[in-house]
């Protein structure tokens, strides 16, 4: 995630070598055009559609262009809205906390305890491989583990920790959170490793020579200097958790619903305008939360520095 810095360096290098012929900005525009075109067509325009349609009227058959606020009024007056948001926030806070702690410890171990470069790369690749496999399958793979007759319950019964199988393991909030942590922790590990690898090892050595113990070094050097990675990882995990609907649906057994689950239900019922309005509201909430994270840690400044 050193993109901005690298962009800056690359742009600086480019200025030094002004080409003859076509002006640089024109060449850049042509080169960037395919990306801009795809994003405009399949990301920006669709979002505008969502915002516009959120004001539309509708019935079973069609959407009717209008400018009415009914869809929004319904969201803000419905008691379900608050419940959905509280559930989503609950998941987000728990998952955020767990992934930060796990992600930090994993990244810290890889960066500061593993001694050789090849081991570090090898272990990092080992962590990354599951990221390249299907999320859907990774989610499903918890079912034989957590089920009533699952492996965890077998262990619990064998160890006589409980007389009856534990029912809260699968199709529950517990299962949802386990799957979130399983799928999203890597999104936390990668940015934190990136931040930590930029910490000057001499700084650590100096602190140790000055008599600092490991706790002090972590508290006063490692955490402050990996804030950027933590912030980026947090933003990624947060948006993924808040935007999910299939993990909640499958692993809660349909018992829990987050904001996006509700939107997905509306979509399946072809209630597009209310779904659009809910999307716009959630989007604003996510934007506010991400900007708070980036306000606490000035990511751009830290990336450039």
């Amino acid at each position, binding site marked *: 995630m050193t*993109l901005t810095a*690298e*962009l800056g360096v*690359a*742009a600086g*290098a*480019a*200025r030094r*070598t002004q080409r003859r012929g076509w002006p640089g*900005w024109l*060449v*850049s*525009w*042509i*080169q*960037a055009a395919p*990306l801009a075109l*795809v*994003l405009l067509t*399949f*990301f*920006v325009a*669709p*979002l505008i559609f969502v915002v516009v349609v959120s004001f539309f009227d509708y019935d079973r058959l069609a959407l009717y262009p209008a400018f009415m606020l009914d869809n929004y009024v319904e969201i803000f007056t419905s008691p379900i809205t608050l419940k959905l948001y509280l559930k989503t926030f609950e998941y987000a806070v728990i998952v955020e906390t767990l992934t930060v702690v796990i992600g930090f*410890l*994993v990244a810290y*171990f*890889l960066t500061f*305890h593993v001694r050789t470069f090849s081991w570090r790369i090898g272990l990092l*690749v*080992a*962590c990354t491989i599951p990221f*390249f*496999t*299907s*999320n*859907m*399958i990774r989610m*499903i*793979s918890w*079912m034989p*583990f957590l089920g009533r*007759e699952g*492996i965890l319950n077998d262990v619990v019964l064998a160890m006589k920790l409980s007389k009856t199988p534990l029912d809260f393991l699968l199709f529950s909030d517990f299962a949802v959170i386990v799957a979130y942590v*399983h799928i999203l922790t890597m999104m936390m590990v990668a940015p934190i490793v990136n931040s930590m690898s930029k910490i000057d090892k001499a700084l650590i050595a100096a602190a140790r020579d000055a008599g600092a113990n*490991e706790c002090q*070094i972590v508290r006063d050097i490692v955490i402050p200097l990996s804030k950027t990675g933590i912030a980026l990882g947090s933003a*990624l995990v947060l*948006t993924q958790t*808040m*935007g*999910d609907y*299939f993990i909640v649906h499958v692993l809660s057994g349909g018992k829990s619903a987050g904001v*996006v689950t509700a*939107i997905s239900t509306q*979509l399946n019922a072809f209630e597009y305008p209310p779904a*659009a309005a809910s*999307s716009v509201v959630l*989007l604003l909430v*996510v934007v506010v939360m991400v900007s708070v994270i980036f306000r606490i840690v000035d990511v751009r400044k830290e990336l450039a520095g």
Partner: protein
Amino acid sequence: MMTEPGQPRPKSFYVLALFFMAFLAFMYGPMLVIFILSFQGENGGMSFPMIGTSLLWFKQLLSNTGRMGDIPSALVRSLEMAVLASALTVAICVSAGLAFRRRFLGAGLLFYTAVASLVMPSLFVGFGIALGFKELGWKTSLFTSGLGAQLTWTLPFGLMITFATIGRFDRRYEEAATDLGASAWQRFKDIILPIIMPGVVGVALFGFTLSYDEFPRSQLTVGTVNTLPLEIWAMTTAAISPVLFALGTVTTIVSFLVLTVAIATIGALVRRRTKPA
């Protein structure tokens, strides 16, 4: 805390190493379990114990019968889509990566739009595209709206890897080539591309696997046919049997094959560079 080789390791090393191993077990354990369970015997269930072993579930997967959709065709469709998405991601990202080496009007805006596309709740992107197509009276289909939806997911990842690769690129090689009279195309083909090749393979890998596994953006945009993740989704909401695990094993093997090829290629490219023939 890191100590020099030869020095005794601190106690915290062993604690953290144990934690790290637990983390890896957490990451791989469930995958291993469904791999084993996919060979469950014919009378076995969704969990242990294994009642014998069989290939029944894999056969059911291929036989295209019962309540399941047509898995083999979905697999082929997903692979075709992944290859196409991967190729487009590479072409678009490398081109954009070259563009971003200069400052140009709108560079920041374009970059942040790509980042926004990455963090946007995926369902909204698919919803927006489906809505747009509907309002414009177009039909959604796999290789139009479906492909576009997947690109909004693969491009931001590809772009980041491209930036990391091109940012490290030493411009002096290119300048030397210019001084020797190379045309722009020759500079790209003979100098830039070979040097950034490991990164390009990385972009291709991300493009392929992210497209191959994509679900939330595809769900509303692929039209009447299903990709593999959509078939899996349909199976989880319908009856669950060890066939699901067999399917999980098959798709994970595909992911692993692609991953192995990519890592081996990157390794070979890096080795060739450090030890010139």
